[in-house]
């Protein structure tokens, strides 16, 4: 273990420089964010991930955000274990009929102010599962969505761009207020 740790010091940092936020995402966010968020939250967000019917592809890439290359926590973003601790719900999948109630309850369990980010093509409109007897559709068919990050699955860097746009927008809304 000592050798591995030593190597870690010598090799230097794997974490890559931050991507710039997505322009389209910033525009979409303009509609939904309150001005008071910065005061309430500072520049940090707790994220609760909810798989509402995904094939698990999106979860794999969301997981990757925690690895050394993307290191999501340096942006003040972190994943939490309960919706009661969350500011943001990161929801994947076409919402299945069998997960609808669980998603609604998770949303209700998340304290205000809260935002919902729908991840993936399926989270947008049901993707290739749209029209099934077992699927309700995209996330916005069940709960209000503030930001969509598309892709099948979106790359970790695209997820980062979207989430950084979310944080930056919170900053901007505060500056305008001051």
């Amino acid at each position: 273990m000592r050798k591995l740790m030593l190597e870690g010091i010598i090799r230097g940092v794997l974490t890559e420089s931050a991507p710039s936020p997505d322009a389209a995402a910033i525009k979409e966010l303009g509609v939904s964010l309150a001005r008071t968020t910065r005061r309430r939250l500072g520049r940090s967000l707790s994220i609760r991930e909810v798989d509402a019917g995904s094939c698990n592809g999106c979860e794999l890439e969301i997981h990757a955000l925690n690895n050394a290359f993307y290191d999501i926590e340096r942006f003040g973003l972190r994943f939490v274990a309960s919706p009661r601790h969350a500011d943001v719900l990161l929801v994947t999948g076409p919402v299945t009929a069998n997960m609808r109630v669980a998603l609604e309850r998770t949303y209700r369990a998340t304290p205000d102010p809260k935002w919902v980010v729908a991840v993936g093509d399926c989270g947008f409109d049901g993707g290739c599962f749209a029209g099934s007897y077992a699927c309700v559709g995209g996330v916005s068919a069940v709960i209000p969505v503030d930001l969509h990050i598309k892709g099948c699955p979106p790359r970790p860097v695209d997820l980062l761009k979207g989430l950084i746009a979310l944080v930056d927008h919170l900053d901007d809304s505060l500056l305008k207020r001051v």
Partner: protein
Amino acid sequence: MLDLVRTGRQVEAHAPWPRVVVDHEVWRTMTTELALGRLTLVSLWAESDRIHAAVSANGSIGVFSLDCPEGEYPSVGATHPAAIRFERAVHDIFGLVALGALDTRPWLDHGRWGVKHPMAATVQAPDLARPAYAFLPVEGESLHVIPVGPVHAGIIEPGHFRFTVNGEAVVRLEERLGYVHKGIESLMQGQTIERASRLAGRTSGDSTVACALAFSRAVEAATGATVPARAHYVRAIMAELERLANHCGDIGAICNDATFTIMHAHCGILREEVLRAADTCFGHRLMMDKIISGGVAIDVSADGIAALRALLDNFRRRFPHLIALYDDTASLQNRTVTTGVVAKDLVAQFGCGGIVGRASGRAFDARKAIAYPPYADLTFDVPVFSEGDVNARVWVRIREVQQSLSLIAQLIERLPPGPVAAEIPAAGECEGAALVEGFRGDVFAWLRLAGDGTVARCHLRDPSWFQWPLLEAAIEGNIVADFPLCNKSFNCSYSGHDL
């Protein structure tokens, strides 16, 4: 089994294995043979008016079909538990009744679809008064119940676990799945091969290569398409990359569940590097939609080969340190050794493949047993352990990482020249099946193509069908705090199972 196959009426245009239409008597004989352990259940699925069972013995596979004009068939699950959940799912989707079944509770249908038996000949309106799901009763002193899910604490798929515990010890775990049922088999019906292939590649995102490969091989078997040699090799590179990525992720995640985070961090780096190499080679980190019927959608370029060589070098330098770290850390071993033991006879009874089977002494690997191309040309071992605990499942993964590295080296060394895809010939109405080895275990696909080349019916069976039930057995007698460790060491698919 061949004797049993001869007793039925063989269906023409079913490849590569025989499918026979049998009567009740032969169906019952098959059921008895399964219960006695002389046959292994590969899958059980239905159409609106018939039931099919794929069974195997000594590496050969046969499909038995029974017509169900009255909407019922003799239960297989009544004597062979591995079939129980299949029969419950078949009833939910098709309405066919397993006569004599012991467990007739719904499985995938949670009463929220707005229809009853969605793939039956006549779809019905749902029952208005539907009783609440009846979990199995548990009796005894000082027991309490811990319900968990469907929304879990981690970034994982949804499912419900109901633990009954006595103090710290789990006396029963009952799983309830079906939350991510998307109706994939129904969506596939009437679709072109291309569209159905996209759906197959999204049954379980972590096994997209394996699922697309199983689907494509079934199409190719049905239509008699000849896949170019180079395509077989490129497919195998994808399959081994998928295995590498998932095994690295799982080894790290298992250690993380024992709060040994340094392994998790290092394995996460390796996993990311595999995905980046896959991206360089094939233009998609998970390689979705890169396997198509007839071959592959993209050839591996010179840059791709260079990225693979760099990846192999990287692994050869760094992976041994991680093995040593795992092996030398007594506090970690303390958590994994003797935890979550799966008995050898149980994996044999359930025909449980993949990591779970091979950690409990069942040496089945479709790459050897079926030896589909190009694996017959390649040198590799199938690592088998007998302890059946979390530690054994870690070691199966470690050894398989090493085998996959060797396989990728062989594949890029011997990569034959030529095209990477062939046309799918028009073959009229035809049927095909395939069994391929994903990282989790063997994935089975069966399909019938209609005369116009669209998919008339497709069935996909994830290896998790035979692994989930054994997780219930593995946790028995262990402490609640070890459940994440046991669960992660199985890493069953929810989406692949719920379909």
